[in-house]
């Protein structure tokens, strides 16, 4: 088992003919993912990297049985692309696109709820379950099948940490990058139950960053509903207030969203907190050992 994706995942790539769409189609296929369709309006009938391209998501779903979409279309068109995917009945949509206005994202999020569509992202690296499927852009090289779950608000920092887990000789069950925007389809709190229920996850690594209160809410959830060991790292301890640190969501506003507040909450909830990103792998090993899992 894994979280959200598995060997039956059949991916449609919205925006497959764009630079990113094409490049990551190659990477997802190399990972072993069933990329069954692409969608670019007006380019239906063509083939990109062996994947048939359709004019609409509905057609792609009908012809190929796609059950997950990954969206690479530019921000101004992302809302429409998502609604098209939702209307086509897809239950899971990973939105890689960054710089989507949060007003659009509010519509997308609530429309998704109405339609029963789970959104991962936007501005996210997506989901990877080694040996099963990858939907998104996490580099293939960092993965190795195993029993550590990873959930994160950042991209490359996650790749580093996931890679570190691999290098120490362990592997991952599922890694999810939730995205660094102020409004995300799936937050820590939304995703934690999946890992709690996943029999293939023994320990969870949670990678947070400054801004908002997602980590504090995660800590509340961990405290009351999560039984597996957790290793947490929070980026941005040294970030000054009032500045957007790369991610639209990474800003300390009015004294809220500091790394200190998040670290304290996670520690109180029983998570092991890593001071440096390079400390995560050894803390994972230690956590598994203490839990009798290694």
């Amino acid at each position, binding site marked *: 088992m894994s979280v959200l994706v598995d060997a039956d995942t059949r991916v449609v790539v919205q925006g497959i003919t764009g630079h990113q769409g094409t*490049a990551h189609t190659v*990477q997802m296929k190399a990972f072993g993912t069933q990329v069954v369709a692409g969608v670019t309006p007006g380019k239906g009938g063509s083939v990109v990297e062996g994947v048939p391209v359709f004019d609409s998501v509905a057609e792609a779903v009908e012809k190929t049985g796609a059950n997950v979409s990954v969206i690479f279309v530019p921000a*101004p068109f992302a809302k429409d692309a998502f609604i098209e995917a939702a209307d086509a009945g897809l239950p899971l949509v990973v939105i890689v696109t*960054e*710089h*989507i*206005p*949060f*007003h*659009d994202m*509010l*519509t997308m*999020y*609530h429309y998704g709820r109405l339609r029963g569509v789970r959104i991962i992202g936007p501005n996210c*690296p997506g989901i990877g379950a080694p040996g099963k499927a990858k939907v998104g*852009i*996490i*580099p293939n*090289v960092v993965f190795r099948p195993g029993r550590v779950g990873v959930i*994160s608000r*950042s*991209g*490359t*920092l*996650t*790749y*580093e940490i996931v*890679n570190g887990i691999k290098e120490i000789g362990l592997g991952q069950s599922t890694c999810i990058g939730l995205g*660094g925007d*102020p*409004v995300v389809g799936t*937050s820590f709190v939304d995703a934690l139950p999946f890992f709690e229920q996943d029999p293939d996850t023994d320990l969870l690594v949670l*990678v947070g*960053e*400054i801004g*908002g*209160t*997602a980590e504090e*809410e995660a800590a509340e959830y961990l405290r009351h509903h999560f039984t597996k060991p957790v290793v947490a*790292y929070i*980026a*941005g*301890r*040294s*970030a*000054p207030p009032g*500045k*957007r*640190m*790369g*991610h*639209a969501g*990474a800003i300390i506003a*009015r*004294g809220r969203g500091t*790394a200190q507040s998040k670290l304290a909450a996670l520690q109180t909830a029983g998570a092991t907190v890593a*001071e*440096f*990103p*390079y400390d995560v792998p050894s803390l994972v090993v230690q956590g598994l050992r203490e839990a009798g899992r290694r």
Partner: protein
Amino acid sequence: MVKLAEWRGKEIFRRCGIPVPTGVVVRSVEEADGAVRSAAVALPVVVKAQVLAGGRGKGGAVRFAASSEELRSVVVGMLGMEFKGETVKELLLEPKVVVGRELYLSIALDRTARLPVLLASGQGGVEIESMADDQLVHLPIHPFVGLTAYEKRRVGGAFALSTPASTELGRLLDAVWKAFQAEDAELVEINPLAVVDGHLVALDAKVIIEDDAGFRHPEYADLRDDRTPLEEIAREKGIAFVQLDGDIGVIANGAGLTMATLDVLGQFGGRPGVFLDLGGTDDPAKVTEAALLMAKAHPSVVFLNIFGGVTRCDTVARGLVAAMTLVPESDRFPLIARIRGNNEEEGRAILHSAGITALSDLKASAQAVVAAEASRPSARSAT
């Protein structure tokens, strides 16, 4: 994020139907004189410096003038003054009014609820941070239904207005919600929303427009006033560039990794001066852009921390070596690189051959960067 000057916010308010005083923006004593002479604004006036920082009242950035002579001297005194790091270039002249009551009203985003939230208080005129929670009405607004009658009644209860203000409130709230949506705002704040002669008037306007909605709002393209020139250039190239107080330049790919790199430097006593996030890519062309941009900030030393995911590390290394040759002699900076990922040994070998320190361990790299900084005099100029 684009913070709009008060007068621009009030233009939006006027367009959306939120009552504001009739004001004039002036940029010189002559313009101020002309505004009074042409009766565009009537004495006595309030003169408000159009700066983005708060606390203008206490800080002398809001003054009054009862005569043309007094106005001239106030304008001379205020134009060009420094206020919390901003230079005052524009003044808003408005008729001085007798304020009955001061209320607070804003709409912002609640990330957790994923809903806009309206905040209202019957005690306005002070900063929201200083308001007690039980003084604030907190109403989520669902974008699919907008502000509803029952929510308006809640605000009405908090404001406890008399007529005609009480009958004006519903339309005003609709207008504020319209402004928030139509302008793709992160924040619309009216503080104070005043009762003047029994009527509601927005005496101040704070509107912050979301950057990402720029494609719908070309009218705000020139208004990113709170960025440094380098930050502005970076934004155009799709690079997140934040100027900080220290001397070390940090280039990394991905916001989280860049922040983590800063954190590690900080732990070893380093003081980062530039946060440069390539945005999750390891594209060699973007690395080149970043190196050239970083040079302009004149850091004492630069720490490049790249996790090579999609591209191979040797490709990234070659791009970096090429970039360094493009930096003008005067802007050269010492560089310590850490590259991880695909083909990392080959990448480091290429950097070594070009005379660039290349390490693999983040901790050791950070220590080396801090040591390098300590051994050099600061070369960073205030760009």
